[in-house]
């Protein structure tokens, strides 16, 4: 996590991305994001715009997308704000990729609850498939990152791949998910535990049991 750094500012990078501009559809979405804020406060839309730019870069490169410096400068220009302020935001949030990533950005949560529930096994499964933290795999499909808590502790361990979460994983279940993605299929998102829907207690509810089938007024029982 700590090894984030900007891609170096090279002539190649300038040449590849110097002409970056929002496409029609991204421009509409960007303008809609800006319109959410009062006039003169367009800077507030910096986060959605960076995200949109990253997505467009992703579409163009068939990856999750990242933020080359010229693209960051474009966003700064679009919002009429100093580029250093945009760069501060882009480097602060690790949802913004500062280096090229693969088609699937596998973000394995390694924080305590996930670690206790076996995230080490997930990382091992990933590296068995040739993924290395912070690197794009040779086939261009995968980038592995270990991240901090993603807020899915009830269904630990979990990984986030691009926009979806996959929870209640074991190395085998993760393999199945990754295999499906590699084949171009869309695996089921969310919990991978059979019989579990979301993050309800495994093995059925232990509290508010009366509420399972119908609404129940507990107030009399307090």
């Amino acid at each position, binding site marked *: 996590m*700590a090894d*984030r750094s900007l891609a170096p500012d090279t002539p190649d990078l300038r040449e590849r991305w110097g002409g970056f501009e929002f496409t029609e559809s991204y421009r509409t979405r960007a303008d809609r994001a800006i319109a959410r804020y009062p006039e003169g406060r367009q800077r507030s839309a910096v986060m959605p715009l960076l995200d949109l730019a990253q997505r467009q870069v992703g579409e163009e490169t068939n990856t999750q997308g990242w933020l080359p410096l010229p693209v960051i400068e474009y966003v700064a220009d679009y919002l009429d704000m100093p*580029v*250093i302020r945009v760069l*501060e935001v882009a480097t602060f949030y690790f949802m913004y990729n500062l280096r090229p990533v693969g088609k699937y950005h596998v973000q394995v949560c390694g924080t305590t609850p996930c670690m206790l529930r076996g995230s080490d096994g997930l990382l091992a499964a990933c590296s068995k498939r040739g993924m290395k933290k912070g690197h794009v795999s040779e086939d261009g499909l995968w980038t592995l990152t270990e991240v901090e808590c993603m807020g899915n502790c009830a269904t630990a361990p979990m990984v986030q791949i691009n926009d979806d979460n996959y929870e209640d994983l074991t190395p085998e279940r993760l393999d199945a998910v990754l295999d499906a993605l590699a084949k171009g299929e869309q695996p089921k998102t969310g919990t991978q535990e059979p019989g579990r829907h979301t993050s309800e207690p495994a093995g059925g509810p232990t509290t508010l049991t009366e509420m399972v089938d119908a609404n129940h007024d507990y107030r009399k029982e307090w």
Partner: protein
Amino acid sequence: MPKVTVDGQEIEVPDGATVLQACELAGKEIPRFCYHERLSIAGNCRMCLVEVKPGPPKPQASCALPATDGQEIRTDSEMVKTAREGVMEFLLINHPLDCPICDQGGECDLQDQSVAYGRGATRYEENKRAVTEKYMGPLIKTVMTRCIHCTRCVRFSEEIAGVDEIGALYRGEDMQITTYLEQAAEHELSANVIDLCPVGALTSRPYAFEARPWELKKTLSIDVSDAVGSNIRLDSRGREVMRALPRINDDVNEEWISDKTRYQVDGLSKRRLDKVFMRKRGKLQPASWDEAFKAIAKAKPGNSIAAIAGDMVDCETMFAAKTLLEACGSSLIEGRQTGMDYDVSNLAAVNFNSTFAGIETADAILIVGSHIRWEAPLVNVRIRKAVKRGARVFVVGPQWDTTYPAQFLGEDLAVLGELPKDVVDAFAGADRPAIIMGGAALAKGALGAGLAFAETHKLVREGWNGFNVLHFSAARMGGLMLGFAQKGGMKDIAAAGPKVVISLGADEMDFEPFADSLKVYIGHHGDKGAHAADIILPGSSFAEKDGTYVNTEGRVQFAERAVFAPGDAREDWTILRALADALKVEVGFDSFAELQANMIREVPALGEEGLAGYGDLPKGGSTAKAEGRITAYPIKDFYLTNPIARASAVMQQCSSELLGSGELAEAAE
């Protein structure tokens, strides 16, 4: 006005005060790193923790907590002591123990506060974080491993300088302060972050490893690089001025100085005139004082003698020259060496009447022919503050980067007579309207039109005078008070065809009309003036003599001598006194004190520190019209405006690196 109790002492604090300010009012010292009076509150160093009741039972950051009625604040409890120790311990986790090789040593907030508030010994045995060096230009040296992330520098560049060039990238432990892609910080005030930095992360590059603070003699001085008259402290060791630092004066420079003020001082020991020179057979050759004075006496000037004051001379020198000329029977004295000839019959009309502190409160400002960022960077800071409070700014003249929203009305001065409707409306609705006339406007003879503008738009009203002239020569207002002005400016002097011309460090003047005169240069740097001179008498720079200076708002200030002039150079007044003997005239002073007393007798305002006060603006000039185009501002290169700066290696480097004006060999990588 809330009443709070600080350590059992009940005090009343102003509305809107913070707990930290309340504690200070009660005389308690609150350690802090990120909090700074002139910057916004960040609250990220946590060093200012105090115990406050009512409130959560934990220490609170006093800098960001408003003082409210009935608060019980404790700065001396066990909780506060432990909290400070804890914060200090965390700050020191990643701070290197390199004080012996750190330039901040001896004047380091972290050092001082860890002695005063820290635990005394470390318990940390892990590896420390290390951060790569960041390039921030020729003035700021960075050792970012020492950074404690107080973000003062970020806030300064955004809020005061108005240029978002420094930012904090990444997060948490990885946070790094840098400029975008490590470009050089380009603002004229950029080096103030060195003073702001509470640790040794940002230190002075030219001053790196030069001296320790306790070796330096500190002298109170006044800056002469522009007409703001920034209050500075010259730190010297032996005969060398090592550095210039700002002194706090809320009326003048607050606590900032421009990079030129700070870094031109290395020019004080370069290209100095330390011997008497005389032109013999077309070449300047060393000579003795005696020879030089004899040569001047041989010219038999009689009353055909003129004196031109340079931009950096003190009032005493000018007065001595004036007295000398009067004794000779001449009144050919002039200070506006570039040939300006604006009317000086009423000094209020050529003064910055709003005062610098006052211009902050203006709500509509018309700038005519002034590149304020270069002519007076600290005034630009004030205008920026005014704009933040809602002032509208209009500029007549070529475009420049203002650091605040401003509307450019074109280069044609005729626009003064027929202002666009929105400008007229802005001034009609303004409570404190102001105009600032710069050198470019004065050179085009627009002073009358400016006064007319002041009259039509009622810039002078109860408790407010919005008519301002912004000079950029430190000697200008003092010179004008002493009468260093002819009706036709330099033209009159040239027309008089004096036999002897004394140039008091005047380097910007045109020497061509004086080809037949004996040109005597009394100055300190081998610059343009010295090249043109027939006789060079080595004088003293501002650091080497006591002197009185008057800034553009008419503020009289005294500077003290920090070091002695090099070689044979003498204090300017002694040279003029000796010259009087050579010319066999009486000037009536034999010591600096006598000279000063004579000067104050003639111009009493020069004897009192503070605003001189020139009375009311002249009436009835409302018909004056301005014509012509301002195609360029007088200052072509901010870093090389005076002989000291031109001699300074640092200023030359800034000029070529930041303004790209010259060729500088790239460092081999």
